[in-house]
């Protein structure tokens, strides 16, 4: 970046806009001065903001109408601010779907899958990436293929088998199924990460007399922890957002996850505008909060994985 100042005149001539670099007010002083500060950049920014605004419209509409009474909605429409805060929609949704129960169900299922699938991925990848067992390319390929399979191609037998073993309408069926589906991806990713694991570290541990089990937990596990935490977070979010298999497997209100419970209320006459909007709002909040908490971990983990 330091060389930029030297090329300033040339860049100005060949740049994007002809509206010179005359404006003295530099908003980003540490960046080089080779970029134009003309009106074009404001126009482009305005366009990008417009796209962002268009993306946000459904969320804005949701926020505006989540706490607006039905009478207010009928009189003033969807784009006005609520004339007074109305919480009946939220209360109505909360009690009708028994939201705390659904929240616990979603957290339990997603959490169990995140931990279980990461553990299975680690064991698989230990054998494939570090153990380099025979035929590992085929095995990894099979896992990758499984990850691409449409769930429809598995669902009826899974439904049938779950009924046979008494796991139908039981959260364990969903947990077991997603542990396998997510770990198929995790095995693929982690195998390639672990295949570049420094051999010298493993050899040193082996020389110290560590068994394979000890090497896994005392050497491989701590070192690959950033990648593993990314997997845990991904698996949690993916499972949280899953819809098809929970819809088929969990028919009972008491076992359902948030998305399935919300969808099952669709078309219900009692679902007025504030109920739907407040319901959508609290249903998406956990995912958004989770995303913001772990955004840093995700970026850090991804770069850590990339550097390896």
């Amino acid at each position, binding site marked *: 970046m330091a*060389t930029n100042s030297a*090329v300033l005149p*040339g860049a100005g*001539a*060949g740049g*994007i806009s002809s509206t010179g670099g005359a404006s003295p007010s530099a908003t*980003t002083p540490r*960046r080089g001065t080779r970029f134009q500060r003309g009106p074009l*950049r404001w126009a*482009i920014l305005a*366009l990008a903001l417009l*796209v962002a605004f268009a*993306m*946000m419209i459904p*969320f804005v509409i949701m926020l505006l109408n989540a706490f607006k009474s039905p009478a207010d909605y009928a009189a003033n*429409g*969807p*784009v006005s601010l609520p004339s007074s805060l109305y919480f009946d929609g939220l209360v109505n949704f909360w009690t009708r779907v028994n939201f705390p129960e659904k929240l616990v169900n979603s957290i339990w299922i997603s959490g169990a899958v995140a931990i279980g699938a990461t553990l*299975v*991925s680690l064991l*698989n990848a230990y*054998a494939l990436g570090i153990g*380099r*067992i*025979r035929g590992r390319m085929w095995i990894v390929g099979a*896992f990758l*293929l*499984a990850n691409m*399979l*449409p*769930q*429809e*191609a*598995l669902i*009826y*037998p*899974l*439904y049938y*088998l779950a009924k046979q073993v008494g796991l139908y309408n039981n959260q364990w069926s969903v947990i*077991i199924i997603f*542990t*396998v*589906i997510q*770990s198929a991806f995790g095995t693929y990713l982690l195998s390639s990460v672990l295949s570049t694991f420094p*051999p010298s570290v493993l*050899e040193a541990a082996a020389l110290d007399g560590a068994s*394979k089990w000890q090497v896994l937990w005392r050497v491989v596990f701590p070192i690959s922890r950033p990648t593993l935490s990314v997997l845990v977070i991904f698996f949690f979010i993916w499972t*949280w*957002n899953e*819809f*098809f298999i929970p819809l088929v497997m969990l028919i009972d209100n008491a076992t359902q996850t948030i*998305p399935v419970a919300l*969808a099952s209320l*669709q078309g219900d006459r009692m679902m007025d*505008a504030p109920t*739907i*909007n407040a319901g*959508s709002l609290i*249903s*998406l909040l956990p995912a958004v909060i989770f995303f913001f908490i772990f955004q840093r971990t995700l970026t850090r983990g991804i770069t850590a994985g990339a550097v390896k």
Partner: protein
Amino acid sequence: MVTTSAPSVRSRRAAGVRTTRRSGRGVYWAYLVPGALLFLAVIVVPFFMNLYLSFTKWPGLGTPRWIGIDNYTRLLADETFWLSFRNSISMIVAMVVVPTLLGMLLAAVLFDYLGKRFNGNVASALRATYYLPQILPVAVAGILWGWILNPQTGALNVFLRQIGLDSLALNWLGDTTTAMPTVMLVMIWVQVGYPVVIFMAALQRVDPELYEAAELDGAGWFARFKAITLPQIKPETFVVTLTCTIAALKVFGPIYVLTKGGPENTTNVPSYFSYQNFFPKSQVGYGAAIATVLTIIVVVVSIVFIRAQSASERKEGI
């Protein structure tokens, strides 16, 4: 257990430094056992059961009756089946083509233009905004959109009537002419953030000196985009188009919550069509045949993609 590896095999193993651990290679198999058993029970067995069911007639009770390829011949004559796959193409347009092109443009503008002319936080904030629809459960997004688009009480039509545009207040999801375009717009909204994030990460990988050199040569923004950005982010473009195409072929949740495949099947897609046969109609064999065809298409598309990618990599001599 076969632990003694022939020299030819060993030479193919990338790093030749693993001689010290050769003795215990067999032990590693044990770590694959839990994963393999689970994989067998949840993927392999159900997959072959489904394949078997696709050759039977079975209402879900009693014994499946073997009918050979009747389900498949019936499929070929079933208009809904063909319609559902034509709708898959619309889904690919809405979930792959448009988001990839739009995402590439947005990522380039954010990274290459706004990121360099404004504070870096501007670009990150915009990126987060574009990505927001991606993190919600798709069923929740569908419920929200379903309400907004409701013909009588939905926010869009109430608003249109309010400002006197009653004639525009259509039955967006209920009319055969508007249903699919409306679903496609919702899917673009859901999908566009994913390519933006991936492409922005890809652009960080590109050596800035390339751009500087091109700029010195007098290349404009679009010329640089075409000559540098596009070729440099090719691997990510492959990943995005492959994963999005698979997602588009498998799409279920949004269709379920927005339209249930209607009106008159104009938004029906293969996965929803097979679900309809499995559960509401209890035509398990027929549903299994649809799912099998969908699986074959997904696998073939993936193989074609991966082949094309490695061919283009070889051509460039990477």
